[in-house]
């Protein structure tokens, strides 16, 4: 029983970086912008979060700086694609290549340096509950933050005027423009929010999940987050489910490796999250789900105001 709870709690932890990155990308995509640079923004957040936490000694300042770094990377993307109308796919790839290089450069002095792990924040009262306590209420602030952020985004998109405007911009930017909304400004904000979230996801990796800096430590999570948004059919709460699913695959393969359950090399087990991503992409592309039909209609299309 305790083992199962610990396992499920580990799934929640492992899904946190994916949740941050995916919920941010979801907001950007709902506004009609496809940013493939999530991996690069996460790496910028990871190295910044690590470096600032190490030098200031404060995890919170580190987390804040990581969010700013992620948003800064997103700003580069936004200027190129929204102001200069560059191709979104190419610019997103450039952002990832740049993020990989820049984070390696900034982090080259930090490789091998240990960092105190982001402390746990037990919720008073609730953390002592049987089963639910260790499962849900004995995590660090970023784990709570990721879930809270997802719920907040779900509420924002579904229930608020701002969320409705953002969705309108993503579905039909000409009409939104015609109604007097500033399409470009709204997309800037959505892209910046995406970068901020990706930065937080990266910071979680480098100061909480494995508190150290390793080159390319995101290991494709930014790309998996992109797949998660498709899997979730651009719905925030489904992102939560998807993130737990992928977190589950990660933990499962780690445990199977640790216990030596299968007589296969560890590398084969490490392939699982990537193969699972492909399988999920196939499943949602066939059969009755057809998630793509629910993609924001203006996703990836540049907008140039004509009048």
């Amino acid at each position, binding site marked *: 029983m305790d083992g199962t709870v610990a396992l499920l709690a580990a799934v929640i932890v492992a899904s946190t970086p994916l949740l941050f990155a995916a919920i941010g990308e979801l907001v950007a995509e709902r506004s009609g912008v496809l940013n493939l640079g999530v991996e690069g923004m996460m790496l910028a957040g990871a190295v910044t979060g690590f470096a600032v936490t190490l030098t200031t000694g404060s995890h919170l300042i580190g987390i804040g700086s990581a969010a700013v770094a992620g948003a800064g990377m997103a700003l580069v993307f936004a200027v190129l694609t929204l102001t200069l109308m560059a191709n979104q796919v190419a610019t997103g790839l450039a952002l990832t290549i740049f993020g990989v290089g820049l984070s390696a*450069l900034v982090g080259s002095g930090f490789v091998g340096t240990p960092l105190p792990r982001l402390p746990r924040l037990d919720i008073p009262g609730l953390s002592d509950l049987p089963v639910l306590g260790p499962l849900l209420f004995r995590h660090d602030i970023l784990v709570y933050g990721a879930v809270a952020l997802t719920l907040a985004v779900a509420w924002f998109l579904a229930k608020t005027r701002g969320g409705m405007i953002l969705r309108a911009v993503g579905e039909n930017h000409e009409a939104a423009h015609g109604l007097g909304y500033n399409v470009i400004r709204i997309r800037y904000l959505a892209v910046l929010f995406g970068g901020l979230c990706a930065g937080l996801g990266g910071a979680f990796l480098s100061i909480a999940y494995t508190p150290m800096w390793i080159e390319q430590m995101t290991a494709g999570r930014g790309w998996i987050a992109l797949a998660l948004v498709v899997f979730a059919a651009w719905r925030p709460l489904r992102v939560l489910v998807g993130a737990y699913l992928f977190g589950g695959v990660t933990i499962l393969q780690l445990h199977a490796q640790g216990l030596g359950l299968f007589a296969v090399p560890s*590398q084969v087990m490490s392939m699982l999250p990537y193969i699972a991503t492909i399988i999920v992409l196939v499943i949602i592309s066939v059969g009755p789900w057809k998630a793509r039909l629910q993609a924001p209609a203006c996703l990836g299309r540049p907008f140039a105001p004509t009048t």
Partner: protein
Amino acid sequence: MVRLEPRAQISPVMSWLTPVLAVLLTVAAGAVLFAAMGYDPVRSLRAFFIAPISSAYGLAELGVKATPLILIATGLAVGFRAGVWNIGAEGQLTLGALAGGYVGLLFWGQAGWYILPLMMIAGVLGGMAWAAIPAFLKAKFDVNEILVSLMLTYVGLLLLSALIYGPLRSPEGFGFPESRMFSPSAQLPNLIAGTRLHLGAVITGVIVLVVWFLMSRTLFGFQVTVIGQAPAAARFAGFSRARMIWISLMMGGGLAGLAGLFEVAGPIGQIVPTISPGYGFTAIIVAFLGRLHPLGCVLAGLLVALSYLGGENAQITVGMPQAVTGVFQGMLLFFLLAADVLVRYRLRVGKPALARS
């Protein structure tokens, strides 16, 4: 006030000038970056861009690094023109190196003229096999090829690791994760004694010319361009989208696989845990910088190859982290994408002219 005004037609002059502009901006930004990192910018730029190619050996090394970049970019450019985004060339390169290298190991200790051609065929097939997965899924179910080809890159790198720590490990290698060295018959001959420039560079040149001919002189090349730029018109004309997806990914995957085989049968001479320093990703930059044109890819490949040599040299002579190479490559693509706005738009100063539409 400065505004952007759409051009009636894209400017062909600008489309060849913007890469030059992007390179100049990257060098300028590089000088600022070096200064910000506390290095003497002039000395660093010299170490990065000039010193590596001021000897015959350096020029040959430039060819060694440019060969895989040009080969992969030439294949990717076809797909990018058709709007097929294969970004998993790094994985396809790895599978090509594994498949071709495996054939080389089968003939270990043997001699024969047929060994290298067999390895090359296996390399091409290995890359194609890996690219066939996103091609099938894209053509059949419209699954996003960007994500599938990228996920397969991670799988491919893990597969290489599993095999090199397992069955491919040399029995005489004292436990190091390396295969046996290929026999002389399974290694690409060097073109110039004392350098590492190998036969693969010549084959790459021939392939570039063939692709150039295909793209500029045949109906196939025309179809690729139409499908990429006007999908509706292409459908109306009866050009098959599924066929184009397959051709794009097979060309990209096959040439990436061949590039991988060239690396293991050329400069490396055996299968090792790290075959490429990210050539498959960097080739994306080369393809764009070369304007998705085979001959453009050659110029762009030579230039981007210099960033690898520059990074290595700057590390040795100025003590700079080698990661600076990746920053340069990223900046180059950013500046190119930003400068490309000039291809489609004109800069205008002042108020918009009225009634110009």
